[in-house]
C-alpha cells in the first residue's frame, strides 16, 4: 500500500526545511537508508534518508519549497499504484504536523463498513485501541514532553496498551540522556534545546519583530529579504541568550610577544601545510585554562549547575549569511596541531553547510575571534547552555615603556563574557588571568 513520507527532523532545532535538491527521481526504487533528497535546515544542508522500501511514486514538493516538519514530501509504494487519493490527502494535510502523517485508509472505492457497531457495554470498557500500523501511538502528554525536549517519538518504545508511548517512556528516555540528536557522551553539555526545554515557561516565543515603518516617501531606497532558516535561528537563539543570560564582561591585554614567536617557531617546524593560527593556540589555551578552573566549564540548567567533566570548545565560524559554531571535542587532550587541523576541516565543511548536527552541538565553551578583521576588542554573546565565551581581538604592535626606553611591543586584547548565574566576577577574573599566564608563557602548553 502506498504511503506518504513526511519531512523528518534532521537537526535538533529545525522546525521546517527547504527541499534543496531531489537526489532520487519519481519512479526510482528505493530502500531503507537511501538518501532521497538534500534538505536545507537551519543549521546545514542535511541528507534526508529514507526508512522505507519501495518505489518513489510521487514527489510532492519542488526543489526550493519550504516544508514544515512532518509535512508530506513524497509518496512511496509499489510500482504502478494509483496515488490520486493520497496526493489529494497530502494536499490537505496539516502542514504543521509534527509527526509523519498517518498512512491513508483503504482507497475510497470502499465506503466505511455500514454494519452497525457492536454497542459498547455500559460499564467502562477496558479495551485498549488496537495499534494502527505505521502510526505512532503516544499519549498527549508523551507527545507534549517529546516536543519540548526534541525527542523523536519514533525512537521511543511504548510500554502502554498496543505499544502506546506513555509519559514514563519519554521520561526514561530523558533520564538516559538519549535524545533525538545523535547521542552525545554522558558528561557532555546538553544539546542546545535542552535548557529551554527544562523550563519551557521561561522561554517565551520572541514576539515577531515589529514591522519597520516603511516610510514609503519618495526617494526611499531599501531592499527586504526574507530570513533564511539560519538567520531565523540566529535571531531566536541570540535574542534568547542576550535576554535571559545575565552577561558580564572581563577584559584584559595579553603581552603577545612570546605567543607570536611561539607560533612562528611552530610553523617553521610544521611547514606551510600544517601551519597553525594564533586562534588555534588560543583554543588550546582556553581548554587548558578550563581544566585548571573546572567551575567555569559548566552550564546553568534552571534548578542546578552542571559542571562538565570534558572540555569541548566551540569555534565561531563566519559563513555566508550567518555563523556556525563547530565544536572541537576534548580540546584539552589534543595538541595544537591536531586542533588546528580539526578546525580547518570543520570550518571548511561549515562554509559549504555540510556539518552534522552533532558536530555543532555539545560545546562547553566558545572562542570567537575577529582579529583577522583588525578588531581590537569586542564583547561576544554567550552560546547557551555554555557559561562563557572568549572574544579575541587582533595582535597589534604598541609602544611599550621598557625602563627608560620606548620599545615596540605586541598586545592582544581578550574579552570574556560570563553567565553570572554560573561564573562570578572573581572566577571570571581568575579565568582571564589564567589565560593571560598561558598565552604569555605558551611553553606551559607543552608542559
Amino acid at each position, binding site marked *: 500500500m502506498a504511503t506518504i513520507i513526511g519531512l523528518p527532523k534532521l537537526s535538533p532545532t529545525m522546525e521546517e526545511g527547504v527541499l534543496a535538491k531531489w537526489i532520487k527521481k519519481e519512479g526510482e526504487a528505493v530502500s531503507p537508508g537511501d538518501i532521497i533528497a538534500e534538505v536545507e535546515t537551519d543549521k546545514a544542508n542535511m541528507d534526508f534518508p529514507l526508512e522505507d522500501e519501495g518505489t518513489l511514486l510521487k514527489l510532492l514538493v519542488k526543489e526550493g519549497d519550504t516544508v514544515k516538519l512532518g509535512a508530506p514530501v513524497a509518496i512511496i509504494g509499489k510500482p504502478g499504484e494509483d496515488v490520486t487519493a493520497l496526493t489529494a490527502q497530502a494536499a490537505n494535510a496539516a502542514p504543521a504536523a509534527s509527526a509523519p502523517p498517518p498512512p491513508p485508509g483503504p482507497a475510497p472505492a470502499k465506503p466505511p463498513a455500514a454494519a452497525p457497531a457492536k454497542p459498547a457495554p*455500559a*460499564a*467502562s470498557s*477496558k479495551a485498549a485501541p488496537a495499534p494502527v500500523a505505521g502510526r505512532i501511538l503516544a*499519549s*498527549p*502528554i*508523551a*507527545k*507534549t514532553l517529546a516536543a519540548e525536549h526534541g525527542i523523536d517519538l519514533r525512537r521511543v518504545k511504548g*510500554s*502502554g*496498551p498496543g505499544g502506546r508511548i*506513555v*509519559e*514514563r517512556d519519554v521520561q526514561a528516555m530523558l533520564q538516559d540522556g538519549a535524545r533525538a540528536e545523535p547521542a552525545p557522551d554522558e558528561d557532555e553539555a546538553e544539546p542546545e534545546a535542552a535548557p529551554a526545554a527544562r523550563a519551557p515557561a521561561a522561554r517565551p516565543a520572541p514576539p515577531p519583530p515589529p514591522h519597520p515603518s516603511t516610510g514609503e516617501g519618495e526617494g526611499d531606497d531599501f531592499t527586504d529579504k526574507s530570513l533564511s532558516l539560519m538567520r531565523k535561528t540566529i535571531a531566536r537563539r541570540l535574542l534568547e541568550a542576550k535576554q535571559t543570560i545575565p552577561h558580564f564582561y572581563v577584559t584584559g591585554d595579553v603581552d603577545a610577544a612570546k605567543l607570536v614567536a611561539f607560533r612562528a617557531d611552530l610553523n617553521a617546524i610544521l611547514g606551510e601545510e600544517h601551519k597553525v593560527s594564533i586562534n588555534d593556540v588560543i583554543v588550546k589555551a582556553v581548554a587548558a585554562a578550563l581544566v585548571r578552573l573546572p567551575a567555569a566549564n559548566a552550564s546553568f540548567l534552571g534548578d542546578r549547575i552542571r559542571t562538565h567533566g570534558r572540555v569541548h570548545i566551540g569555534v565561531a565560524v563566519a559563513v555566508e549569511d550567518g555563523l556556525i559554531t563547530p565544536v572541537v571535542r576534548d580540546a584539552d587532550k589534543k595538541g595544537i596541531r591536531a586542533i588546528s587541523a580539526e578546525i580547518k576541516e570543520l570550518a571548511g565543511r561549515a562554509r559549504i553547510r555540510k556539518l552534522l548536527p552533532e558536530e555543532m552541538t555539545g560545546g562547553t565553551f566558545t572562542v570567537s575571534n575577529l582579529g583577522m578583521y583588525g578588531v581590537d576588542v569586542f564583547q561576544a554573546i554567550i552560546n547557551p547552555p555554555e557559561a562563557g565565551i572568549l572574544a579575541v581581538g587582533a595582535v597589534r604592535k604598541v609602544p611599550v615603556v621598557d625602563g627608560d626606553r620606548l620599545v615596540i611591543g605586541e598586545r592582544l586584547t581578550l574579552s570574556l563574557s560570563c553567565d553570572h548565574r554560573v561564573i562570578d566576577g572573581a572566577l571570571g577574573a581568575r579565568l582571564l588571568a589564567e589565560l593571560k599566564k598561558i598565552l604569555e608563557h605558551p611553553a606551559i602548553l607543552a608542559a
Partner: protein
Amino acid sequence: MAVISYREALNQAMTEEMERDPNVFLMGEEVGHYQGAYKVSQGMLARFGERRVVDTPIAECGFAGVGVGAAMVGLRPIIEFMTWNFSLVAIDQIINNAAKIRQMSGGQFTIPIVFRGPGGCAVQVAAQHSQALEAFYAHVPGLKVIMPSVPSDAKGLLKAAIRDDNPVVFIESETLYSVTGEVPPGEYTISIGKGDVKRPGKDATIVSWSKALHTVVEAAKLLDKEGIDVEIVDPRTLRPLDDEIIFDSVRKTHRCVVVGEGWPVAHFGKEIAYRVQKMCLDDLDAPVEVVTSEDVPMPYARNLELEVLPAAKDVVDAVKAALYVE
C-alpha cells in the same frame, strides 16, 4: 476545633440560619415531632415552634410545591425529603417550577429554596430506595447541586445554600450522618461552586464527592502502600462545578479518575471526564477513568449490594489502569 457529626453540622447550619433570619423555615415528613427521620432536625421544633418546623403528610409533590410558593412570596424554605428517592414524585415542582420561575417571570420572582435529604445507597433498602440521582438534577439549568462529604463542608455549604436566592438541591447521605469531623468554630459559610483538595498527591487525580469520597480515601491508603500517591479533589458542588481545581490537579498529575455512586450511563463523572479531556488534552497520559455503580437496579442482598457499589478495589484498579501498571 470542635469534632461533630455530619448530622449535627446540618442541624447547626439550619439552627443558625433560622436564628439569623425569621423567613427561614423547615418543612418535611417527620421533621418536627419525630425530630427528623435521621434526627437531623433534633431539638428544632422545641426551639422554633410549629410555625417554623412543619410536619407534612406523606405528599412530596404537595409540600415541595408549597415550598416553591412560599419562596415566591418571600420566605426561605428548607424542604426535607426523607430520601431523595421520594423527590421523584416531586420532580416536576423542582424542575418545572423551582428551576424555571425566576427566568420565566423575567426575574420578578426569586426562588430561595433548599431541597435537602439523603441520597444514594444506604444499607439494604433495595432498588427503589438506593438511588443516586445527582445526575438528574445536575442536568437542569436553574438548579444548584451540592454534595458535601464531610461535616465542615456540610455546615458551611448548607448555610450558603439557605442564603442563596436560587433553588439548591442539597444531597446528603444516610451513611454519612454519623461520620464525624472537625468543624471551624463560629460563623462561616463555604462558597457554592468551590472545590477542595482533600488530599494532595502527585501520581493521579481522583475526583470524588459525598459518600464515594470516603471509599476513595480508603483506596488512597491502599495505593500508598504500593507507592502510588494520589491527589483527591472534592468538587463539593456539582453544579456549578469548580473546573479549575480539577484542571489544575490534572495538569500536575497527568492522570484523572472520577469516582461517584450512580449508574454509568450519563453519570455526572462522564461530564467531568468530558471537561478534563477538552481542557487538559495535552496534559493527559491516559484516558480519564470513571468508576461508578454497576448498571443495574440495586439488589437487596447485602453481598450483591456491595458488588454493585464502587469499592476501594475498583478505585485502585482504575488508578492503576490510568498509570499503566498491573
